[in-house]
């Protein structure tokens, strides 16, 4: 009989030629240390003070959201600033923003899995949860924007007494299916990955009621080789399916605009440009969540600087693609020779909303250039600030696309400005409250890092330390 403790020997961290530490796991991690660090957070009966402060703020924002929704349902969408010609306002801006944020989760969990990028291990659970919650916020927005939200189910094809069917040639109907599928697939993917970890939490639970609750959700998972085989195949296939799905979802969202003839919307660059922007804002939001959580829960030895650095790199690349999109939009407006397109671009930059356009350039093009510096990428605080700029910038981008295109289109006599009301702002910040409340509950109740995948890194240390 042999020594009981299986230890993993992880070599000391190497420094890559680009100047960042390469290890995905701090040296000296064992199965037990990984299990304990991650599984103890949901099993503990108390939460850190900063969790309570954050959760209470998020909950109050959620209450404000419910209040704003109630008022909206009582009064109708006249309480918002939307009117003709700017009939799409904050709700659509928020919708596109939230769907975009969701995309990083799928990118990290599916595309990086297919590309054998092991630096997804410690962050995939997190970002998948972020995807779910962001899609929930996004899905609410068009529903709130319906004049009669209580008949939202008319969007679905079902045989009803009126004999009317949805119009499947419309991108707005495509949206229903794209976002619905996206939410469902993200949920399945997330839960399938979670089942083995819930079993770990079940087996470590010191109290019977905790064992029972986690046991129910673990579905009786017993780590059998045959189960793991099916689990891995299903997980890989779901990743393969989610990869084209994530590209299709924001493409469909962009077609809501691109299919219309409004100057500033009617553009073929929209699908790729929207997808790049989506991943851009998603990574920014992931960093904005991961950096504080990593600090509060002392997870620095699992979410090493390598992760932050790689995420910053992806953000930089996507930022460049987005900047290219801005440039091509302006160039095509000029090159088309169309006076409406040309005026739209001029109005965007120098019209009444010009200052918003230039703050967009600041947030999304200028500030992210600081990520070329390794020192900024490796410092969590500066990275957090840059990510915050990008998040705000991406919200502004959607505002610029939606509002500045609509407010001055073909007929000057129909031009008008859009001004958000307090209810618009309450819906925006309220949805942030919904997102954060769900996220705080997730961090508290569910193992927030994939324990089984981190154990794989412990078992095969060479994977944890690739340049």
């Amino acid at each position, binding site marked *: 009989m042999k020594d009981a403790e299986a230890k993993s020997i992880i070599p000391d961290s190497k420094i890559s030629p680009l100047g960042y530490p390469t290890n995905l796991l701090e040296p000296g991690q064992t199965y037990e240390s990984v299990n304990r660090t991650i599984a103890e957070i949901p099993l503990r009966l108390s939460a850190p003070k900063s969790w309570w402060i954050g959760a209470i703020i998020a909950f109050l924002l959620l209450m404000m959201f419910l209040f704003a929704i109630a008022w909206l349902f009582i009064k109708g969408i006249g309480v918002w600033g939307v009117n003709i010609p700017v009939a799409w306002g904050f709700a659509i801006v928020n919708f596109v923003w939230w769907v975009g944020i969701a995309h990083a989760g799928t990118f990290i969990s599916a595309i990086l899995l297919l590309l054998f990028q092991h630096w997804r291990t410690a962050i995939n659970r997190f970002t998948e949860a972020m995807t779910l919650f962001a899609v929930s916020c996004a899905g609410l927005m068009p529903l709130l924007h319906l004049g009669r939200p209580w008949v939202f189910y008319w969007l679905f094809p079902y045989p009803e007494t009126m004999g009317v069917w949805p119009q*499947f040639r419309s991108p707005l109907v495509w949206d229903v299916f794209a976002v619905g599928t996206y939410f469902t697939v993200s949920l399945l993917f997330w839960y399938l990955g979670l089942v083995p970890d819930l079993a*770990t939490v079940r*087996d*470590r639970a010191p109290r019977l009621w905790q064992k029972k609750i986690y046991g129910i959700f673990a579905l009786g998972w*017993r780590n059998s080789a045959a189960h793991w085989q099916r689990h891995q195949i299903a997980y890989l296939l779901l990743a393969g399916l989610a990869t084209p799905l994530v590209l299709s979802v924001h493409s*469909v969202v962009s077609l809501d605009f691109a299919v219309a003839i409004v100057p500033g919307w009617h553009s073929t660059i929209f699908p790729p440009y929207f997808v790049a922007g989506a991943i851009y804002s998603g990574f920014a939001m992931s960093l904005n969540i991961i950096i504080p959580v990593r600090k509060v829960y002392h997870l620095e030895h699992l979410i090493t600087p390598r992760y932050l650095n790689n995420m910053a790199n992806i953000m930089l690349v996507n930022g460049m693609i987005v900047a290219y999109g801005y440039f091509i939009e302006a160039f095509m407006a000029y090159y088309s020779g169309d006076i409406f397109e040309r005026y739209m671009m001029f109005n965007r930059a120098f019209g009444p909303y010009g200052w918003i356009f230039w703050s967009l350039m600041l947030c999304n093009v200028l500030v992210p250039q600081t990520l070329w510096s390794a020192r900024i990428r490796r410092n969590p605080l500066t990275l957090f600030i840059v990510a915050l700029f990008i998040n705000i910038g991406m919200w502004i981008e959607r505002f610029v696309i939606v509002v500045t295109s609509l407010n001055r289109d073909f007929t000057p006599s129909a031009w008008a400005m859009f001004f958000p009301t307090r209810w618009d702002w309450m819906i925006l910040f309220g949805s942030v409250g919904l997102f954060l409340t769900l996220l705080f509950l997730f961090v508290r109740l569910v193992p927030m890092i994939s324990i089984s995948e981190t154990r*794989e890194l412990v078992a095969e240390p060479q994977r944890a330390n690739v340049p």
Partner: protein
Amino acid sequence: MKEKYGLMAEFSTHEELVHAAEKAYEHGFRNMDGYAPFPVEGLAEALGKKTRLPLLVLIGGIIGGLGAYFMEWDANVISYPINIGGRPLNSWPAFIPITFELTVLGASLTAFFFSLGLSGLPKPYHPVFNVPQFERASQDRFFLCIETRDRLFRGDETRDFLLSLNPLTISEVDK
């Protein structure tokens, strides 16, 4: 005497478990299973486990896609035809996005429900949970269980075979 489900050997590393599984398969055991806290590469193959899941997922995807196109065609051509800008009623390019989305949905639902369903989950009770140290299968230990229903299973002989694999412990699994 209580009825037994099988004999379970405990190992401390995944290499030992794969080695043991290969040996057991070579010895002729078929009704057995390995338990590990993470998907060990090659373990299921060493135990001779196979699965038809990929084929089912393909079928699920095809049903989803065909169903979606049929739904759109039936709604916009048969049940509720509207002429929009003179476009053909069966305007297939506009039907592709939803066909694609529902293909993905059909395949994903199949992958999820069949991966769990073929494994017999959810299943709250299973004999292996009767072994006290089995709690560590989800944490840091590796187990190989040879079941009594295997045609080569002979109480003490099987125990001697498992002992030859040099495990940490051997336990009888109550049914």
